């Protein structure tokens, strides 16, 4: 904690609050928070319902917590698999070179350029807002692995020229072992940064789709919460707690993730003695 800079501290602090609220607190709630008509509609914030109730008769506070939980779930799932696939393919591509490298490079350049949102909207639109959280995550993984792959490939290209790789090669190590034992340690800190960034990107893309009703409308995520609030004219009617709480939550989550990202880069630069 001694060398932590201000950005890292603020970021971790805000994120920790959201993780406690979004991941741990919902475990103590029995029942389904997104069920309609459980409470009187449109109650103002009070001690019984700290964020009031929605036009659909849900307790806004518990819907918000459930939404944060699901959004984090999507973010973590996509970030884990996209980073894993990307880093492995990037290392393989950079280390092996040749035809394999060209093919992988072509595929990842293609996926980076292709605008993913129209394709996601097409998929989601045909499913009419009934896509499952898992299928949305799967599509997001397909569109997010090429970014780390591209970066890690560039790093693997320079590592390949180092002596210790030659030593490993001449002592008959397998490609898989060289990649995981010799190259991976050099890209771990970068992979971690990419992991955090992908959480941000995944939550952002899913909620972007959800805000326009193209995600899974029956599931609670931060985006679908905003969607329902807009659909039921929460703004016009001045029900700011319904539309405001997910907007503030999503903004704070993104800022905290980004602060951790840029703070950790400064932190590791400091540790390298720069």
């Amino acid at each position, binding site marked *: 904690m001694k060398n932590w800079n201000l*950005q890292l501290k603020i970021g971790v602090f805000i994120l920790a609050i959201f993780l406690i609220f979004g991941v741990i607190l919902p475990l103590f709630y029995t029942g389904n928070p997104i069920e309609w008509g459980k409470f009187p509609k449109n109650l103002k914030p009070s001690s019984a319902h700290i964020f009031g109730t929605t036009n659909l008769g849900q307790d806004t506070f518990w819907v918000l917590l459930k939404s944060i939980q699901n959004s984090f779930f999507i973010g973590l799932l996509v970030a884990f698999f996209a980073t894993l696939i990307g880093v492995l393919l990037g290392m393989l591509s950079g280390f092996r070179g040749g035809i394999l490298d060209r093919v992988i490079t*072509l*595929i990842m*350049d*293609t996926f*980076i*350029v*292709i*605008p*993913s*949102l*129209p*394709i996601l*909207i*097409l*998929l989601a*639109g*045909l*499913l009419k807002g009934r896509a499952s959280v898992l299928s949305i995550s799967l599509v997001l993984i397909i569109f997010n692995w090429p970014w780390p792959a591209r970066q890690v490939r560039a790093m693997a290209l320079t590592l390949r020229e180092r002596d210790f790789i030659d030593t490993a090669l001449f002592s008959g190590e397998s490609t898989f072992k060289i990649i995981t034992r010799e190259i991976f340690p050099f890209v771990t800190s970068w992979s971690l940064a990419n992991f955090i960034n992908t959480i*941000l990107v995944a939550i*952002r*893309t899913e*909620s*972007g789709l959800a*805000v*326009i009703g*193209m995600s899974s409308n029956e599931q609670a995520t931060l985006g679908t919460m*905003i969607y329902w609030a807009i659909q039921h004219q929460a*703004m*016009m009617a001045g029900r700011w707690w319904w*539309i405001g709480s997910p*907007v503030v939550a*999503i*903004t704070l989550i*993104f*800022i905290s*993730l*980004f*602060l951790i990202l*840029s703070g950790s880069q400064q932190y590791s630069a400091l540790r390298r003695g720069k």
Partner: protein
Amino acid sequence: MKGMLHVQFLKFFLSRLAVFIMVVFIGVTTVFFIPRLMPSNPVEGMVSQLQANSSLMDPAAVAKLREVLTQNFGLNGTLFEQYFGFIKRVVFTQDFGPSLSMYPTPVSKLIGTALPWSLGLLLTTTLLAWLIGNAIGLLAGFRKDKTYSRILEGIAITLYPIPYYIFALVLVIFFAYILPVFPLTTIVVGKGLSLQHIVSIIYNSFLPAISMILIGTGWWVLSMKAITTGIAEEDYVVFARLKGLSERKIMTKYVLRNATLPQVTMLSLQLGTIFSGAIVTEILFSYPGVGTLIYNAILQSDYNLILGTITVSILAVSTATFLIDLLYPFLDPRIRYK
């Protein structure tokens, strides 16, 4: 030497071209196959929708309707024939058939009306965000110990991670509901090149444009600052300073030129993301561009319009990326094609 350069340029050009063709190919193929892999049949969907609206329909008319719709959707023949028919239409004629929700207006005409709005918004905001962001980033990176640099960076860090649509929503809440200064939907008055028309377009595009510029700027400030900080420590900058060049000259002639190059590459990589943000922003503001068209097409299950708008957006973004990539070697005096 000159011959070498040509060969290098050709290699660079061909590798970019290969990516471009792959993008178009994968994009168009995905757009073709996704609807066909769906469990719902668009023709039956349309037929049942029409039957629900008018209770009495002659079976012969229904059969005829089915035939016409199958023809319209390009669903005749084997999957193979359909696929090549689709590619042919996309690449050569850009004919996506008539729109079904606004029958019989052709899809290409609807896209033609929406495209200038989208392009206008995207080009202006991307360019402005790029220029403003890089200028601020240059200043903040070159004079990183000044207080204003820290403040500017702080603002950029806060703005960058917020998605366009969240920012757009906040702007809508403030300037269209609480303080009704700007319109919620687009109503354009005037025609042609009249002042009234131009003012009306700017007035209607203002909120979506502001949200896209502010968020876009954050990213460019951060990346430019990182690049500039690195360059400012290079030996040739130290040498220029020892030579007694003015700080202003060092910043514009030495640092700016070298820092701009990676930012051009970055722009071509970010274009898809910016476009995705624009789609959602357009929908939230009911801005009359391609994004809103895609949205309405999906809401009304207008199959031809969905295929048309999505194919055109993929083509537009990949072509723009390709062109920016080609620009790069002409900007770099050291000529490094890679």
